């Protein structure tokens, strides 16, 4: 089985594209391993230098390296990340900044997942998560799994996430969630940061088929940008997408080698 | 046939065969240029037009065409008489050049007086210089260029067929060449095909005489003095897109008109080249 992967991103309206504080990366590991790994993170605006923290997390979770997706290995990786962050050379331009670094630290939600068994008929996805970045498994136009298992009412409160402060290590390990599922050809996996995830979970309550048809057929970044902009401007508050950084990673399981490559010019 | 649009996926190919024989040193009509200078200038203008067509985002030219210029007669680099690629500078020796590379590597940018009275001079990039000497090995030019055109067509089977435009002021002096005459070499050239049709060979004959009667895209060679009939015979029919180009430029084309011009001056050489190189670009 092959994976069609595309990741769309939009910064918060009013921000520059480079100020997007989410992070996303992923792909197939090597040519013949039958494994693919992915990570999507969402940096907290109020934290210390969230761009840098997001960058470190995503860089360290490369497709070919990074931790195994099970609690003990993830704890070790959290600790390694915190040590790496603390050891990073910084120049503080004020005592306030220095204290924020040491006392508040930085923070990001985390969704990391892998797909194994691509060479077989039933690949498996396995995921870990801290916070409200969500993995949605869709088959034949229906949502069959949500990981973490969040509903539309579960967004808007302080989520769990990966902290830079060592004092949070135990809590992170306790709160880390794991999940898994079996994939079939034609299935979709959507990984979405909270603004998009929240919108999706509300929208499918109104017309699920339309949501997946729309998101499944997106193929151009400008169309995605227009779609997000329109949903942010939605008059109906219950339908409106929150103005926040948006990331949507879409994986589509292809039965065979693709016949085309779609390139934007 | 001749329906394919030019695109970055299926670029086009335009090759110029440029007569660099000694007779090109003659003054051209009533202008102050020699035919060599005028032909080089027309070529540089045509290349610039191709680049205008290919200009996408600022600072970039899209790869819509591969372009070649083969000079025959004097070989300024190789010496003596023969055929060699006519690009200079960083493109020296290259038989076919992608438009983005052409854009980035003119030999020079020169100031030319504007045609508009009182307007400041315009800065014009130059890729081909005017030279002249020796005789007119036109068959060898077709043989040399043909090898590169064949390889290009093999690599671009879905593209609009290659366009080869021969600019000359005289009679061929090397027919037969390697056992084949000019007619046969020309036939070999247009036997090169893509899935959209055979290669197109157009010929334009320059004359130093300012008063000679111009003939453009005729359907017959009636009344043409030598070497008109020979060049007419080896010229391809003008395909519909280029008939449309000619008509939109105000040049009438008879049914069955060929890509042939006779007694062209500098202005009409430019018009001829425009008609022969404008193909729809879609991307």
């Amino acid at each position: 089985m092959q994976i069609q992967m595309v990741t769309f991103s939009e910064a918060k309206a009013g921000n520059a594209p480079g100020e997007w504080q989410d992070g996303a990366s992923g792909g197939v590991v090597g040519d013949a391993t039958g494994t693919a790994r992915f990570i999507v993170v969402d940096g907290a605006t109020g934290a210390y230098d969230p761009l840098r923290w997001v960058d470190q997390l995503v860089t360290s979770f490369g497709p070919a390296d990074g931790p195994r997706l099970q609690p003990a290995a993830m704890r070790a990786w959290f600790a390694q990340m915190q040590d790496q962050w603390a050891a990073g050379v910084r120049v503080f331009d004020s005592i306030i900044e220095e204290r924020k670094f040491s006392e508040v630290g930085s923070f990001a939600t985390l969704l990391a997942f892998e797909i194994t068994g691509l060479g077989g008929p039933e690949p498996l996805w396995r995921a870990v998560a801290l916070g409200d970045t969500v993995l949605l498994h869709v088959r034949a136009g229906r949502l069959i799994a949500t990981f973490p298992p969040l509903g539309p009412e579960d967004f808007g409160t302080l989520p769990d996430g990966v902290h830079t402060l060592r004092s949070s290590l135990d809590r992170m390990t306790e709160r880390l969630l794991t999940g898994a599922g079996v994939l079939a050809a034609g299935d979709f996996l959507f990984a979405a940061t909270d603004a998009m995830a929240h919108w999706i979970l509300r929208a499918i309550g109104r017309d699920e088929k339309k949501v997946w048809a729309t998101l499944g057929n997106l193929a151009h970044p400008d169309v995605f940008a227009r779609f997000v902009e329109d949903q942010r401007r939605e008059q109906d508050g219950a339908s409106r997408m929150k103005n926040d950084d948006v990331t949507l990673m879409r994986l589509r399981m292809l039965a065979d080698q693709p016949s085309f490559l779609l390139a934007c010019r | 046939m001749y329906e394919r649009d030019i695109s970055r996926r299926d670029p086009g190919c335009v090759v110029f065969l440029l007569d660099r024989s000694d007779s090109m040193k003659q003054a051209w009509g009533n202008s102050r240029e020699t035919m060599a200078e005028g032909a080089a200038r027309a070529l540089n203008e045509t290349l610039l037009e191709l680049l205008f067509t290919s200009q996408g985002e600022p600072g970039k030219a899209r790869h819509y065409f591969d372009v070649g210029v083969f000079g025959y007669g004097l070989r300024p680099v190789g010496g003596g008489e023969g055929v060699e690629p006519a690009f200079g500078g960083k493109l020296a020796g290259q038989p076919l050049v992608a438009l983005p590379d052409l854009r980035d590597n003119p030999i020079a940018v020169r100031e030319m007086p504007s045609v508009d009275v009182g307007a400041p001079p315009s800065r014009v990039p130059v890729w081909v210089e005017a030279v002249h000497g020796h005789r007119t090995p036109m068959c060898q030019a077709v043989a040399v260029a043909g090898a590169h055109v064949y390889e290009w067509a093999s690599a671009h089977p879905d593209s609009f067929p290659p366009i080869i435009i021969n600019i000359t002021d005289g009679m061929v002096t090397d027919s037969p060449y390697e056992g084949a005459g000019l007619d046969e070499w020309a036939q070999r050239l247009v036997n090169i095909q893509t899935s959209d049709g055979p290669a197109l060979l157009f010929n334009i004959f320059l004359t130093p005489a300012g008063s000679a009667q111009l003939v453009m895209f005729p359907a017959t060679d009636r009344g043409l003095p030598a070497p008109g009939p020979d060049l007419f015979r080896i010229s391809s029919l003008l395909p519909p897109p280029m008939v449309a180009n000619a008509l939109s430029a105000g040049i009438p084309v008879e049914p069955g008109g060929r890509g042939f011009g006779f007694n062209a001056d500098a202005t009409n050489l430019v018009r001829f080249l425009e008609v022969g190189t404008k193909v729809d670009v879609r991307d």
Partner: protein
Amino acid sequence: MSGHGRPGQEPSPPPLAWALLVIAAALVGGLAAAALVHTSLVIAVAVAVVLGAIAVAVFRSPAPERPAPERPAPERPAPGRAGFADPRRQPSSPAPSRGQAGTVVELLPLQTPPGANNSRPAGQSWWDAAAGPPPPPSSAAQRAPAPDLSTYLASTFIAQCPRCGAFRLDARRAPNGWDFHCESCEYIWAWQPGTPWPPVRVMPGRRRESRPPSP
């Protein structure tokens, strides 16, 4: 993430969606009527524009007529930048220069076209090699009725730059596959059909259009 539970501002909805749908429908009709050879391009443009545009139109609820808010005129891009205005100078405006002429989607067939790697046998002259029958058009060049649009995406990789995640790429056929150049971050890579698309890291900060124009 921003502060949770803090509502954002409420800009008025733009009169965009219906115009976008009309334009998209005209585009589909126009392309279908035109004698374009590249049916894959028809499909690609339709997939990218029509489905997405219909979706965005359908998901908007009707809005009352409101005067458009005052917005600064879009800035001309600085020389050398690829036509993207600094978004920080145009808050909350419709995407100004993106999606305009020059940004299209193209489906590139991955089968090696017949004759593409034909080289004449050693010792054979080019004119003898050219004397054979013309090459048949590849499947991408042949005209055929357009199939259902959504079937194409089911058999497609979507190209993104592995280094920054940008979509606007320059693709050229290479002897063993394709060479790519990212127009946003200048990254260059090669890819062979039959292999997975390389892992992608989305990093808008690496893209040229995300950086502020130089003074």
